């Protein structure tokens, strides 16, 4: 208790909560604060409901085996939540970086205890639900009253593990290349349940379980042994396993935390620079120089700058990679499920994945033209270059990377040997190209009216403002119209000529829209220069 009463400890925990509150409410101002409190009430209302559900439902279970299974499932979910939340907070910048406290007189051993305490404070939801479950177990006629005591080592195990996982991931995410792979893995995990559901329908699960489940050797996972102990299945070997997990988590958490404290990010960067291949660097240099060979200056120089900036931005690299991987995983269930028969979804997989990739890339390529590389925004206003030229350069770069993305999507789809007519390849290019021109036209305007700062080095931080989300909701259905018309024309006239005719007409309209919007966007960029630069100065540090 003395540790908790220490003013340093209280100050650190308070700073953690203030940081989260300030970040969520944008400094605790106006509508942000109202939104924060509404979402808090809804979120914790849901958490309290789950706790109440656990407290009332568990006593109704009359079989110890069922009770063990239910509690085990709940504890597994709690464990996943506890490991995921600190990582999410760290990547959003809301989590307090204890490494920054190294300059203050805080004892290193106390720092680890503080880290564990912070992990508890960022998982209060789990604690509330577990409290509900504990009440439910106490009220249960088949479980002993002392059962919930085993939640304590489980909770400690989670907190210690969570401290270690967070530190390990922080170090991994700082490494170029590894960062993208780790985040991609996390994002992919969210799509896997859908894929599994489509490949293995629920009615076949029982067959698969009977076929393979028996072959999986039983393993004393912490959630399972805690559930067994809590349900009254007390044996010494289970108790030993529970405390074995606790010891393992303590060792892992402490060693990872200590490594994190002495870890030197500059040394890692220096070693990465030393090991980077000179041949690869020369290859990339030729790639960067390509626009300057084809386009006159200043357009060539501007496009070259965009190439360099985007290729070096972790956020762009991740989104580009996700376009042809995550996008495919999202749409694959439709092909593997209902579209196995000729026609239907499977025929159009390439078009759908390509369009999805275009929408995904929008955030980094055209919805926020000045915000993604905001340090350069000021320069555009002081350099003797037309703002329309800057926008054209950004749009040329966007089209190049969009076409590259669709090419890669095509290659991946072909490599996966998904069956679809080859005529769908030009169709995918035509549809996405027309869509892209429309999106660029609206993106240029949106960029000037809703600019917002984005950190291109942060791979996973949410960035879209509420207003732009509203614009997107209106824009996407409208943009879907010419595409729908093209497919309708082909259906009505039973010829590809009708399809390409409508797409061609749509393309002409798109180009005209683009030209008009370009002028408007350039005018807006000029007239709103102060508002744009002020908006881009907010959030994550001033404009350089």
């Amino acid at each position: 208790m003395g540790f908790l009463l220490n003013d340093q400890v209280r100050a650190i925990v308070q700073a953690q909560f203030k940081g989260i509150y300030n970040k969520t409410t944008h400094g605790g101002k106006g509508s942000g604060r109202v939104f924060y409190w509404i979402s808090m009430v809804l979120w914790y209302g849901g958490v309290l409901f789950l706790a109440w559900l656990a407290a009332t439902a568990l006593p109704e279970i009359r079989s110890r085996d069922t009770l063990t299974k239910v509690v085990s499932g709940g504890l597994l979910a709690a464990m996943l939540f506890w490991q995921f939340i600190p990582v999410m907070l760290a990547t959003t910048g809301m989590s307090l970086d204890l490494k920054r406290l190294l300059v203050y007189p805080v004892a290193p051993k106390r720092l680890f205890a503080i880290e564990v305490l912070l992990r508890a404070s960022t998982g209060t939801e789990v604690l509330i639900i577990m409290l509900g479950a504990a009440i439910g177990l106490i009220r249960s006629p088949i479980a002993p009253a002392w059962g919930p005591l085993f939640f304590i080592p489980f909770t400690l195990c989670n907190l210690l593990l969570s401290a270690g996982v967070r530190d390990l991931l922080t170090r991994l995410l700082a490494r170029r290349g590894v960062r993208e792979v780790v985040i991609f893995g996390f994002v992919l995990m969210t799509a896997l349940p859908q894929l599994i559901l489509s490949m293995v329908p629920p009615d076949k699960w029982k067959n698969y379980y009977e076929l393979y489940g028996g072959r999986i050797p039983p393993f004393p996972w912490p959630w399972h042994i805690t559930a067994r102990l809590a349900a009254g299945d007390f044996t010494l070997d289970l108790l030993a396993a529970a405390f074995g997990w606790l010891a393992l988590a303590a060792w892992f958490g402490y060693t990872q935390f200590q490594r994190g404290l002495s870890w030197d990010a500059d040394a890692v960067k220096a070693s990465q620079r030393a090991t980077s291949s000179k041949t690869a660097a020369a290859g990339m240099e030729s790639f960067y120089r390509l626009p300057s060979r084809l386009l006159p200056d200043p357009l060539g120089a501007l496009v070259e700058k965009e190439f360099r900036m985007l290729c070096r931005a972790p956020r762009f690299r991740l989104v580009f990679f996700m376009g042809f991987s995550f996008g495919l995983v999202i749409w694959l269930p439709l092909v593997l499920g209902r579209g196995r028969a000729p026609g239907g979804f499977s025929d159009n997989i390439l078009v759908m994945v390509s369009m999805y990739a275009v929408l995904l890339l929008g955030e980094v390529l055209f919805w926020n033209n000045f915000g993604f590389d905001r340090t350069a925004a000021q320069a555009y206003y002081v350099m003797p270059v037309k703002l329309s030229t800057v926008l054209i350069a950004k749009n040329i770069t966007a089209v190049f990377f969009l076409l590259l993305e669709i090419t890669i999507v095509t290659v991946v789809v072909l490599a996966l040997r998904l069956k679809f007519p080859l005529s769908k390849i030009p169709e995918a290019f035509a549809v996405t190209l027309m869509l892209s021109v429309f999106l660029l036209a609206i993106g240029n305007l949106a960029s000037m009216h809703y600019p917002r700062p984005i950190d291109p080095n942060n791979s996973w931080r949410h960035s879209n403002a509420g207003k732009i989300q509203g614009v997107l909701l209106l824009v996407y259905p409208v943009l879907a119209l010419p595409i729908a018309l093209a497919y309708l024309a082909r259906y009505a006239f039973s010829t590809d000529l009708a399809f390409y005719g409508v797409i061609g007409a749509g393309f002409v309209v798109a180009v005209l829209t683009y030209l008009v919007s370009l002028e408007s966007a350039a005018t807006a960029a000029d007239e709103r220069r102060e508002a744009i630069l002020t908006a881009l100065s907010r959030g994550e540090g001033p404009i350089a």
Partner: protein
Amino acid sequence: MAIFFFTLPPLSQIATIEGPVHAESSPAIEVRELRKVYGEKAAVDGLTLRVERGCFFGFLGPNGAGKTTTIRMLMGLAPASSGSIEILGHRMPAESLSIKSKIGLVPDDTLLFDHLTGAEFVEFVGRMYNLGRELSRSRTAELLELFELDGAGRKLIGEYSKGMRKRVAMAAALIHRPELYLLDEPFEGVDAVGARLMKDILLDQVRHGATIFLTSHVLEVVERLCDRVAIINQGRIIVDGTMDELRSGTETLEDTFVRVVGGPAHSSESLDWL
């Protein structure tokens, strides 16, 4: 000009964890054969340095010379590859806790908490130095007023300009009245009025017995404030002396700096087009 803020007694009367200030005759900073290697490159290469107590010490060098790396090692943020660091009679890292309680820092940007307001951050730092909530809060209010940051209200540090960030860092450095200040480019981006205020406070602190270790690229500022200067280049100290020694004859500090560091091989005259 003496600047008085807080109602604290002079530094000489303040007792610290380790006993009264100046009880020890050890130098404020003593560094021997310090090395920091990144990959194959030594950012700091056998640096030996001694800064006496009560000294306003300027630590100069061209970009990439190893100044920030040195100061990060002194702060305990980066472990040294080899060599020894002794600060206020305590060895780093063995006695780092005693050292940290006696030093005030104006670090580079990265140590500020962007999601806190200026007031929240300065109060937080005060509590890290065990001043307690009430004292931290009252000193924070005084310091923010002094640095004209009290009007920033609910503005987060992440939204501050560079000058404001330096001012808030300076306010945080002063809150526990340290014996030694480690200042990394403290005047960078600060306006003339703010810079003047900071300089006056620092000089006042030196008069009261504090030691200041300052890195800056503005040689005029160093020339006016510091009584001793060391110049580091490629990780090694190449000049270490009093300001008078460095400005011998008609040479200014800038002349000396350019001479010892080695000016550019070509002047602008070699560029015909310029």
